[in-house]
């Protein structure tokens, strides 16, 4: 493991997305051994309130379980925007995300963040890579995240990753969400994820999508928010992002209690296509 590069503040994501776009060509090679880190990060309670509102979490003294992703995401993007990263950031698709809430994290805790890339592997439609995040408080790991991205048509060294497909058991419809046109812009504002594919139809078209698509992490967060009060103290939540959720849409959240946790699905209400499948399990 390389020595972490410690950043004094969160990098600007608009700049990184631009930098990644102009340096997209000619990428390749193997994964850099870079670890990016920030230490003693204080969470802005105002940002937590904004995030909670957009994702529909209650405002509590502990962070929404997906909130640390928002803290570590700029480091992920910085790592991927760097020329040493083998895949071009524009066109990367978030296909899977696992979050481990080791314990509830207090809003007032000072957090040490570390992010690195892992598991660069061939995939039937290209190559995948995992961006791993670890969040510590007073030395103890309190939160982990693993985001898997797919680069269609790209190549990676070695054998295909041996990751089983995420499957779920029976679920039944729990709620209908009318997801508005501006859902991407609202989440971008509170998360800093200003990837143009989420912001408007026009910017999404530039990247080959017919309309703007919802952030996968917003869909995941909102599904967890719907389970507020019904989640274990320490848990993992693993989701697969299937078909993009075009904005606006009406989708349904389905849930089923399983193994002390939940199976869940977010599906298009009309067509029944899967947008997100997920499993929540106690740790």
């Amino acid at each position: 493991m390389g020595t972490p590069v410690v950043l004094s503040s969160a990098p600007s994501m608009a700049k990184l997305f631009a930098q990644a776009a102009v340096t997209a060509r000619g990428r390749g090679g193997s994964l850099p051994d870079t670890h990016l880190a920030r230490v003693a990060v204080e969470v802005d309670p105002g940002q937590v309130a904004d995030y909670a509102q957009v994702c529909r979490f209650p405002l509590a003294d502990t962070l929404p379980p997906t909130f640390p992703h928002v803290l570590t995401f700029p480091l992920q993007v910085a790592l991927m925007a760097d020329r040493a990263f083998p895949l071009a950031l524009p066109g990367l698709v978030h296909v899977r995300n696992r979050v481990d809430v080791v314990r509830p994290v207090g809003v007032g805790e000072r957090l040490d963040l570390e992010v690195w890339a892992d598991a660069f592997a061939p995939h039937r439609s290209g190559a995948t890579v995992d961006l791993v995040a670890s969040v510590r408080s007073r030395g103890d790991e309190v939160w982990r995240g693993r985001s898997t991205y797919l680069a269609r048509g790209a190549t990676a060294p070695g054998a295909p990753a041996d990751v089983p497909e995420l499957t779920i058991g029976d679920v039944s419809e729990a709620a209908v969400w009318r997801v508005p046109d501006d859902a991407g812009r609202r989440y971008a504002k509170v998360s800093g994820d200003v990837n143009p594919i989420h912001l408007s139809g026009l910017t999404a078209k530039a990247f080959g999508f017919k309309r703007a698509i919802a952030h996968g992490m917003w869909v995941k967060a909102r599904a967890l928010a719907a389970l507020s009060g019904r989640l274990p103290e320490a848990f993992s939540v693993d989701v697969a992002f299937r078909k993009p959720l075009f904005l606006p849409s009406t989708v349904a959240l389905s849930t089923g209690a399983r193994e002390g946790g939940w199976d869940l699905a977010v599906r298009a209400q009309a067509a029944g296509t899967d947008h997100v499948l997920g499993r929540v399990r106690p740790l």
Partner: protein
Amino acid sequence: MTRQAAIVGGNRIPFARSNSKYARASNQDMLTATLDGLVARFGLQDQAVGEVVAGAVLKHSRDFNLTRESVLGSRLSAATPAYDVQQACGTGLEAAVLVANKIALGQVESGIAGGVDTTSDAPLAVNEDLRHALIALNNAKTLPQRLKALSGLRPGQLVPDVPRNVEPRTGLSMGEHAAITAKEWGITREAQDELTVASHQHLAAAYDRGFFDDLVTPYLGLTRDQNLRPDSSLEKLATLEPVFGKGEGATMTAANSTPLTDGASAVLLSSDEWAAERGLPVLAHLVDAQTAAVDYVHGGEGLLMAPAYAMPVMLARNGLTLQDFDLYEIHEAFASTVLSTMKAWEDPAFCAEKLGLDAPLGPIDRSKLNVHGSSLAAGHPFAATGGRIVASLAKALHEMGPGKRGLISICAAGGQGVVAILES
């Protein structure tokens, strides 16, 4: 079957000053956090209680099912029924009485009573003219009808209706009403300031000795009530200008009146058996309660004087005198309200003519009054005050030993009042 409901314990979040620490928290956020704190304290996770009864005074229309929605977001079992009540500042105590009555009748074995209010995340309504225009627009079926409805819109209608602490029938604020009563009863500025300083000192001392350790759960960075000023003194209070009442005789200031506050509280009540089965304590029982109302509009009585009327009815029913109590909790809506109420109970003419009593109820031993501070220091998120008082008083009586009696008196908007007796 009737039996007395046990008070097992309580939980509240520290009360915050308006537009401060809890500015981003909704009523539902605060009530959910408060319920979760109670659940954690008494090991109720995933369990159903008989009923959760709570309310808010300032409520958004989307909060029509506030308590049930809060239960669904909490760690209580989703199989816990809930309903909302609203009796202005009497909401919290009335909720406790309702839960206690169902327990007394054997209809439930346990229940949670609570209340919440925010003056920060306030329910602004659209201007009444705009509302009518929008309803007309919504009902319009044809283009000419729509255009006609739209033609009724004016820029001035964009000014929202802000909820105000005003009696709809008199147009006077609660403070202005209290100032009239204070003047009638000749309540001095000095007496009000003394009560205020005592409230702050008592609350600070109670925090310092850890009294609230099992009654309060920190929330959004607050660990104590934000309005609390332990260094409050008569000299400092004397420098403040009156804010209610007019001219020479005005006595009511921002310090001896409660400020607008945000917060929530909850109390766990049960049958003795339910508590015993779970190894939970019984701090006190809710013995009896009484409400009363006065005609403050046309009847010449003060807006906040209803508890004065409720008290003798409840005392007589229980064969008790006003002096038969070890602790008194008179809600400090305003210092002058507490003092006017006590003066009325001592006044032979008032007790004879208004209350129809042969003799005055008499004085209260001031050393037993609001001994852990009250609303002047803690603040008063309207519906949350009753739960704060019930839980604190039950704990205080329990500390004193068995057989101790406590009296609660809470005044409310609309000329109403709720009083109750607790016994350890």
